[in-house]
């Protein structure tokens, strides 16, 4: 099949619409690849979730249908770029022809004015006004041409180059990059063995790993989290430290093309002693606190509540007869308290830092593409305007100035700016009104029909 078969704007619009619909469906249904299938079950119930999985909606962005749409729009974009968009860049080189009064009167925007000054003066004044407005002007033999925002002709070309470059960057990353997430406790090690990458992968995993030396949370006075920090060491297989750095949210560590991000943070467990015996209890998020549970017998549960890394541990007990747990004690880190014959000690909380990592070899290309796309879209915001003018001496030091032009993107605004310029010139030189000739008077008397309601209605376009 020839490439030109894909160079259809109608196809572009159809594909854009279909992709937008798919994306909205993907936004509505939690995506397994991002949040896991359990989230889909939580949202829709198990049977509906299974149905959504069967239809491919719970992992829509990896379905052959969606990937096919992306493939189609890529082909369409390449075809449109080569056949329609890139050739338009040649228009940048095209010079405007100088037009006379007759040609100017046929343009989409055309206006004229009589001025009490010679034609050359009127043309000079108009050229000065247009130059001040940012037009690039050329004058030859009493004829003027001007262009405004010609560079906007490149908008589509630049945007398409950006989009195609972005696809190149994404492809490079997909074939050579990797990423992953791992919760790591202090002194724990992050390696890249479990990382995710595409099936068509040509990359290499690093041999070095990252050790978490320490991790902490900084709070606002209100107790809300302000920042999370983790001190990391990059270590080689022999244990040699290659780099150390403290990371926080928005401040990653970078080493040999791999970036390590502070992604999340939480208290994982508490270390306590129970009658002198050390224990580690897992914490669960409960409201604004973390709680651990220790069943003492069939009826009695001991509950440990911790509101923050540096806060004291609160100990509660709960039996079925009590509606609410009863608080027994509050003990700071490193202390021991007694409940009759039972001694409970609070050693320390064990935090867990959530580390996100990625290697993205296509990033430079992708980011460059991002800036190119922004540039292209910004260029498109400026409407390209072309203006032509000529002036004819009308005797007794007066002239008629003819101005016309085109602006496909902003015709009305352009027309207003032309009439504003003419009004300014009239205000400067005074208006010259030509006396009607005998011929035109005869014409008015014999040929011109008064406009009736019927003719007015006929002139109104009715269809779309």
């Amino acid at each position, binding site marked *: 099949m020839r490439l030109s078969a894909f160079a259809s*704007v*109608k196809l*572009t*619009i159809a594909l*854009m*619409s279909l992709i*937008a*619909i798919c*994306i*909205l469906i*993907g*936004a*509505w249904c*939690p*995506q397994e*690849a*991002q*949040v896991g299938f359990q*989230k889909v079950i939580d949202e829709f119930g198990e049977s509906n979730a299974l149905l959504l999985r069967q239809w491919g909606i719970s992992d829509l*962005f990896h379905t052959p249908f969606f990937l096919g749409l992306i493939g189609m729009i890529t082909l369409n974009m390449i075809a449109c770029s080569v056949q329609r968009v890139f050739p338009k860049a040649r228009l940048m080189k095209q010079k405007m022809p100088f037009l006379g009064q007759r040609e100017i009167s046929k343009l989409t925007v055309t206006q004229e004015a009589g001025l009490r000054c010679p034609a050359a003066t009127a043309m000079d004044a108009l050229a000065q006004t247009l130059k001040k407005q940012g037009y690039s002007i050329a004058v030859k033999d009493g004829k003027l041409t001007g262009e405004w925002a010609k560079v906007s002709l490149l908008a*589509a070309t630049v945007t398409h180059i950006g989009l195609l470059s972005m696809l190149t960057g994404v492809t490079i990353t997909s074939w050579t990059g990797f*990423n992953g997430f791992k919760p790591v406790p202090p002194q724990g090690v992050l390696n890249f063995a479990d990382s995710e990458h595409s099936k068509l992968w040509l990359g290499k995993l690093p041999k070095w790993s990252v050790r978490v030396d320490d991790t902490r949370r900084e709070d*606002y006075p209100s107790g*809300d989290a*302000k*920042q*999370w920090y983790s001190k990391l060491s990059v270590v080689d297989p022999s244990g040699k430290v290659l780099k150390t750095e403290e990371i*926080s*949210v*928005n401040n*990653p560590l970078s080493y040999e093309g791999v*970036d*390590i*991000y502070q*992604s999340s943070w939480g208290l994982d467990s508490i270390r306590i002693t129970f009658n002198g015996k050390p224990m580690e209890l897992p914490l669960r998020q409960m409201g604004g606190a973390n709680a651990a549970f220790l069943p003492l017998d069939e009826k009695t549960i001991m509950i440990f509540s911790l509101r923050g890394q540096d806060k004291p541990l609160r100990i509660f007990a709960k039996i079925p007869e009590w509606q609410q747990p009863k608080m027994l004690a509050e003990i700071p880190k490193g202390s021991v308290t007694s409940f009759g014959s039972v001694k409970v000690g609070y050693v320390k909380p064990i935090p867990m830092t959530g580390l*996100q990592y*990625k290697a*993205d070899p296509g*990033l430079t290309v*992708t*980011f460059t593409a*991002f800036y190119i*796309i*922004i540039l292209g*879209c*910004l260029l*498109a*915001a400026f*409407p390209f305007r072309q203006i032509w003018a000529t002036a004819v001496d009308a005797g007794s030091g007066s002239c008629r100035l003819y101005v016309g032009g085109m602006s496909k*993107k*902003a*015709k*009305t*605004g352009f027309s*207003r700016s032309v009439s504003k310029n003419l009004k300014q010139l009239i205000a400067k030189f005074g208006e010259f009104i030509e006396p009607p000739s005998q011929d035109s008077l005869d014409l008015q008397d014999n040929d011109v029909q008064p406009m009736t309601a019927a003719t007015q*209605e006929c002139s109104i*376009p*009715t*269809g*779309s």
Partner: protein
Amino acid sequence: MSDVQIALTNTAGISSVVSFWVFVGSNALSKKRDALVKAGQFVLLIGFAALTAAIIWRGFESGRFPLSNLYESLLWFAWGIMGGYLYIARAYDLKQLGWLASMTAAVFFLYGSWLPAGQHEIKPLVPALVSYWRQIHVPPLIISYAMFFIGGLSAFVQLWQAGRRRSVFLACAALAAGLSAIGLGTFTDTNTFLLQGLFIGGSLFGLSLAWSNVGRADEKHVNVERAELYDEVVYRSIMIGFPMLTIGIITGGLWANHAWGTYWSWDPKESMALATWLGYAAYIHLRIHHEASAEKLSLVAIGGMLLTVLTYLGFNSLGFGGLHSYGKFK
């Protein structure tokens, strides 16, 4: 919130309501239209200045860039609507759009004032928002939403001036369904699936009917010149909003890469923003290649406005989760 900030914000809100009635008066009293339109614009300009001062004041009070929750974003949005309208009205000497723009600003002021008190208070930032990227990423998005709204409102006027009154009423019904869903989702505990159904169903049904009726012109009420003018206003508004949305999405990707190690996560909010971008990209392609009439383009712009509402407010009130959850208040 300090008394000064409350006074400035209230001045802006009251100005939008007053200017709305002045603009309405300009339509009722055709002999004094020009004077009343100018008066309405002047009142709105006072509101715009007061809102600018309110936003700056809030920034000084909080000691940070004042754009971190829904309430603050609504202030920015109203600011964008007021400023965008004043700019475009001056460029095109518009007479009809003022009452719609001031009404939109007033509605958003009311919406913001009805949010829970916690939204109005200045609160510390969550770790994810402690970044200079916040002031690079969010303002272009809010300004783009405001410009798309102005484009959508102009599209209603364009259809009206083109005599497509039936399509105007049907598109209004679609917008009303969408905004009702947002309102119910924000202030009541209505089932989220019902709300999503109301938004999507109402929008699709209303716009489809409007599209099928767009060929029917009420010829007695056609004003070709004004229809052309407002068609251009729609296009110009979108051509300002589109690069802003592009910058917002891309800087969001750059920030996400900086903070989380990935520039795209198919998060609901970013997905919706991409769908909105594709919608407006389709509008631009349709327009440049003359694939649709001005009236059909206006309906596409109204559809884009509904997508903008979904992206901006639907995320909060229609039960979507994801990485942008710090924007939520429920």
